[in-house]
């Protein structure tokens, strides 16, 4: 059996890749994908430790997370659409009318 630390390392790696994407990309779609990556990193943990502890909660919760992530993407795409209509771009650094 794979030691649980490895799963933790994998999940952390994926999470950090997602975070890196968020910090470096200004395209809204990349932003969404990066968030998905971070959520799936959490899912790796859930499923792995569900197996480790012999407890189904983690797996079921991972399913819920997938569904919620999809819903979040749906909302996100909707907002990106109206963003494009109003600002003519999906670059998230463009709308800076409100600040300070």
């Amino acid at each position: 059996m794979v030691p649980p630390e490895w799963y933790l390392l994998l999940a952390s790696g994926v999470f950090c890749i997602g975070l890196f994407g968020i910090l470096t990309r200004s395209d809204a779609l990349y932003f969404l994908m990066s968030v998905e990556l971070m959520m799936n990193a959490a899912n790796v943990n859930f499923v792995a430790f569900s197996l480790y502890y012999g407890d189904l909660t983690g797996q079921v919760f991972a399913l819920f997370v997938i569904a919620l992530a999809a819903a979040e993407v749906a909302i996100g795409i909707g907002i990106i659409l109206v963003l494009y209509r109003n600002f003519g771009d999906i670059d998230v650094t463009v709308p800076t009318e409100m600040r300070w």
Partner: protein
Amino acid sequence: MSSVAPAWSALSPALLLGLTGLALLLVDTIRPNERSNTSMAVVSALGALASLSVTVWFVIAGTGHADTGGAITLLEGAVKVDTMSLFFTAIFASVTALVVVAAHDYFHDHQRPAAFYSLTLFAATGMALLAVANSLAIVFVALEMVSLPSYALVAFLKKNRGSVEAGLKYFLIGALSSAVFLFGISLVYAATGSLIFGEVAGQIESLDTLSGVAGIGIVMIVGGVAFKTASVPFHFWAPEAYEGAPAPVSAFLSSASKAAGFVVAFRVFTEAFPLGASLAADINWVLAFGVLAAVTMTLGNFAAAVQEEVKRMLAYSSIGHAGYALIGLAALSAGSAGNEAVMGAAMAHLLVYGFMNTGAFLFVAMAERWGIGRTFEDYAGLARRAPVACTAMAVFMFSLAGLPPFAGFFSKYFLFMGAIENGFLWLAGLGAVNSVVSLYYYSRVVRAMFLDDPATPSALDAIDVRPTALYAAVVFAAVATVLLLPGFGPVIEAAEAAAAALF
């Protein structure tokens, strides 16, 4: 209570809110082309009020109270109805009712207002669910259930660049924060093997080598909570979202959504990560909340002092108030008898804040409805045209500033007092200094409305309509703020009882 009714009926406040939202969708499905703004508003307000009355009835009947058999748990312990959940559900339902009533006038010329009402009610359902959550899984699902409609609500004015920009920023920061939150939950699950609060608490003390994992997880959960409560450094979305969103939505987010964040924080950090056990595992989250509270109230108040627009000032002031309420978590110490007093005071502050802050934002909604400008100068002389509303606004401002004898003074007083009793003099002192700063910018509004002259004589001619429902909501919020003076005794007692059940 629980002996005569099935146990699931303890969830009826949340269910009522959800069913009302669904009913609105059904009605709109059946008659999609009729613009029935009024009936929609009435139905949603009735739903929220029904939920409120059931909640109040439960509180009076003692549902979930220790005297009547203790908290009611459902769904294998994932849901728990107790006094605190009812207390917060009352806040959510009241704010929702105020907001939907006010929205009736705000969206009077909107094409499809039905979506607004159902989204608001779905978000309220999520909040009510948050209040009863007893498992990290439910917490996350309910949190998303609050967040997702909120994103859509902020961006509800699809053709308004401000609204869209606000929605985008809110969504992006929100998505990032919920991912962080989720990862935190997964780490806690990895360390303890459970998501139910009680079981997590049982494991925390005996973590041994995994305490670092759990610690990182807990800090990430703190982050998720801080996002929902708009606390520094997760607050960046708040000024923009509150400023750009339609004002009723700002009211909803800054009052109800913030309270929802706090109910999660209160429950998670007392039941899942109890202080004594956390300290034994070297996870001093009180320190984290102390830092957050200090930074949050300072940043919020100082930034609010230099704003030019009233709505953005209110946004920052709302951040400052999150800092005050965080004292409820930051001023705890293991095993101290004063813990319930300080947390109870924070809850009472959130209730009072729910009314006064909602009222203030709804006043801004009224100003937007009239079409006068957004800055302090644009409010000059407003009291001459709208004396009742301006008096109400003055009540909100003074109460927010914590000026005696308004209700805001009492809640803040009890809060600082509790912090001092628990040995956190520095937090209370910082809070007092910040209150002084806050008086400056709140009184600017009052001065503009009552003492200043309008820039041009015709500046106020825009006020030609009397939005009845908005007026009603604002006045009702003001009356509630005032009525909380004599009613503060029962409120603080209920809050302290709710907090006592947590420790």
